[in-house]
């Protein structure tokens, strides 16, 4: 698709003026390049989720269960009672429009139904029709139905829901600006729960979820292969540094269990971030005797269950605590990931806690108590590394990153669902000299999504992804032109994959790096040889000549 739609053509289409007429009257056109393929029946079956079947969003017949309207009605009713967010957010929107131009998908497509308020209204209109007194009173007056702003649940409405709730990455940027804190992510989450009751998930979510459940990670990497992959990285690292970093697996009695998204294990450039972790753990083991283990069972930090339903999220997440308990570690360390950290920070302890079998996390090297994680007992790796650097426990050679002119992309989930803003910046500034921020409206709590979050980083919806990523790319392009930025730092596995594609499309001169890749480059391992290349096997600054 990206071959067909050139950036210029995409930019030409952007127009923020909605068409005339009422949004309720138009029927949805599901456009290729903008939607993801339907979930495979077998993936839906793995988790025993209902209505597994083969279906195609482009066909008229979605093969829904006969009572699908009743299922939706009951599902909404149940969720109104179970989630105050949902109930309040259905009721209190005044349609002031403050959120309208805050969504990256709206800014990139100009499609008015990508305004967060209208995305929510898609569902709210049915809620009003089915559940509010005002609509029920108005319905008694002739023509009153139109005044109520409600509409009945029809197949067209369902298709429109499906199309647009899979054009929301649950990034929460709109909720920063909403005067009542209405969070479209909550509404999208409810809509997707409803889709799953009808067997309407997308495959890019359903299959990773199925793999994760059975095999432990999204790609379905089996235990021996997982070990092979990390050992392969160890070989690469040995070639570069002369040190064997010896990753440990499923080790009982280790100090710390480390869990990161499996994207770091199989997809460039996350693999280099993964090598950064391996180098850090080796350094800590040799210098301070810290014992870190990986797990093949809990080998996925990411949780596409979060994009399926609360229940599925809990089922996948359960492995983290289960494995920590089985291995008898003191606490858990989590790698760089966005939604993984939203789940850990705001959901894990509630769903699968209390983690009373773990210790309150203390960094044994610095003595720092991670007070902010004392109940959940899981620490973010940039919190951990920032603490080590602050206490002077890492020997770093910044000059190895001297050719990296950096900017930093705050991930939606860690910024708006956690507030992890300074930790990664502190790490970056200690491993790299050249750091420039993007414009303030595009970073920190106002950061723009990569356009591919919440399970939308598939191949078939590339047009949607490139449009949705435009605001992010546009800000990167700005610092690229102004300061010569050539490196976009991230702390998210989906970002590392998605932003690479996005940069190739919009700002090809910029490469995407995980923060711990930079740490891995800078960290001086005990007994290492003189490095000539960085982890990407490209010559280090000052070594270019010797390479020729």
């Amino acid at each position, binding site marked *: 698709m990206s071959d067909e739609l050139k950036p210029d053509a995409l930019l030409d289409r*952007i127009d923020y003026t909605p068409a005339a007429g009422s*949004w309720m009257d138009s029927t949805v056109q599901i456009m290729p390049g903008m939607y993801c393929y339907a979930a495979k029946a077998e993936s839906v079956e793995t988790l*025993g989720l209902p209505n597994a079947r083969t279906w195609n969003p482009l066909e008229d017949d979605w093969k829904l269960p006969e009572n699908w309207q009743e299922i939706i009605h009951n599902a909404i009713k149940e969720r109104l*009672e*179970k*989630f*105050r*967010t949902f*109930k*309040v*957010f259905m*009721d*209190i*929107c*005044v*349609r002031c*429009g*403050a959120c309208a*131009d*805050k969504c990256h998908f709206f*800014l990139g497509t100009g499609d*008015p139904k990508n305004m967060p308020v*209208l995305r929510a209204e898609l569902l709210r209109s049915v809620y009003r029709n089915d559940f509010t007194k*005002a609509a029920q009173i108005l319905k008694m007056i002739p023509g009153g139905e*139109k005044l109520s702003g409600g509409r009945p649940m029809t197949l067209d409405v369902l298709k429109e829901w499906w199309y647009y709730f899979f054009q929301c990455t649950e990034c929460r940027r709109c909720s920063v*600006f909403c*005067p*009542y*804190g209405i*969070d479209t992510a*909550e509404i999208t989450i409810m809509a997707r729960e409803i889709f799953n009751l009808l067997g309407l998930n997308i495959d890019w979510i359903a299959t990773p979820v199925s793999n994760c459940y059975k095999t432990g990670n999204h790609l379905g990497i*089996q*235990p*021996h292969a997982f*070990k092979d992959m990390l050992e392969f990285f160890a070989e690469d690292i040995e070639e570069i540094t002369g040190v064997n970093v010896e990753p440990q697996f*499923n*080790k*009982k009695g280790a100090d710390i269990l480390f869990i990161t998204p499996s994207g770091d294990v199989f997809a460039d450039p996350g693999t280099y971030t993964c090598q950064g972790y391996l180098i850090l753990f080796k350094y800590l083991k040799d210098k301070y005797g810290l014992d870190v283990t990986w797990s093949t069972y809990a080998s996925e930090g990411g949780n596409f269950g979060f994009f399926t339903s609360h229940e599925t999220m*809990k*089922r996948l997440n359960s492995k983290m605590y*289960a494995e920590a308990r089985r291995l008898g570690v003191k606490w858990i360390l989590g790698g760089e990931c966005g939604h993984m950290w939203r789940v850990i920070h*705001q*959901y894990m*302890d*509630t769903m699968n806690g209390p983690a009373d079998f773990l210790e309150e996390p203390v960094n044994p090297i610095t003595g*720092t108590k*991670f007070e*902010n994680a004392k*109940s959940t007992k*899981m620490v973010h790796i940039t919190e951990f590394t920032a603490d080590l650097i*602050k206490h002077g426990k890492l020997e770093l050679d910044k000059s190895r990153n001297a050719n990296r002119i950096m900017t930093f992309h705050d991930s939606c989930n860690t910024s*708006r*669902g*956690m*507030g992890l*803003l*300074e930790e990664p910046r*502190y790490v970056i500034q200690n491993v790299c000299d050249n750091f420039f921020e993007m414009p303030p409206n*595009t970073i920190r*709590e106002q950061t723009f999504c990569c356009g591919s979050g919440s399970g939308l980083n598939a191949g078939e919806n590339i047009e949607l992804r490139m449009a949705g990523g435009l605001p992010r790319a546009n800000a990167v392009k700005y610092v690229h032109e102004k300061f010569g930025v050539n490196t976009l730092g991230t702390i998210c596995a989906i970002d590392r994959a998605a932003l690479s594609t996005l940069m190739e499309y919009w700002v090809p001169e910029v490469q995407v790096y995980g923060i711990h890749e930079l740490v891995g480059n800078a960290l001086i391992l005990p007994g290492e040889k003189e490095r000539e290349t960085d982890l990407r096997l490209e010559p280090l600054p000052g070594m270019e000549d010797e390479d020729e």
Partner: protein
Amino acid sequence: MNQKYMLPLAGVFLLFLLAYAGVEGAGLQWFFGIVIPYLAVIAFIWGFVNRVMGWASSAVPFRIPTTCGQQKSLPWIKQNCIDNPDKASGVFIRMLLEIFLFRSLFRNTKAAFNRDENNRLTYSWEIFLWVGALAFHYGFLVVLIRHLRFFMEPVPASLAFLEYVDGIVQIGLPGIFLSGLVLLAAALFLLARRIFDVKVSYISLAADYFPLFLIIGIAATGIAMRYFTKVDITGVKEFTMGLVTFHPVIPPGVGGLFYAHVLMVSVLFAYFPVSKLMHAGGIFLSPTRNMANNTRAKRHVNPWNYAVDVHTYEQYEDHFRDKMIEAGLPVDKEE
């Protein structure tokens, strides 16, 4: 003509005429002056309490504040205690700022895309909605408080002081109350925005125009009575004191315009709980704003948390045991 706003406009006109004609023509003062206001107040209180209780009865399964600043983490990293509070005190301040100063709306920006050689997306600070909203709400609040003088005898000194401040700009007689004019101007601004801003117009429903027209009608009739038709103020006070002391009276010499004002206010009250106006109550219960971001430090309990099917390590090892042993991975059971 757009029926999304023409119908609500017509509806408000109809209300006006109904009361005016009902009083002037049919002499239904008792109905518009006594029955309707009492019913409206009952509907308001019952509806408001019901709505809030309805929200409060829904569970809060997860602690999911929207964080708008640095979290509390390492001791040397400065936390943003208000936009990312980890304590009740920070949440309290965050809520105060939200409720009284519309802090989130204050952040509002306007995005623009310039299709030229740079193709730049730009974001500029957009303060007008915030100013308009603040003027509207505070104008309304002062008007509302000022009206308490009709329901109290004697009028407390604090109210008299408020009137003094509100009437600080003196042009002719009777003295001008700024609040009423601010309210009317702000409501007209918000209406103009709804009609002429294409995006806002596109998302607006009849339910967005109706309360605006109603409030504009209330403000306009109020202003007309005070400055132009010079309503019999002693008669009005006699009437309102009658309502509030449950000894309703219909004073002579108070005309249709007043009852039109009262009907529109009554409709606003009755309409309030079944409409978006409930944002006034909802903001207090919005979980993305009223919760502390300390979920990792302090466990939040989900009242309906239930056990789920999981894929256990034992099942996993049973599935992969041979491969694990072959790869030299430790296993719990050798066979």
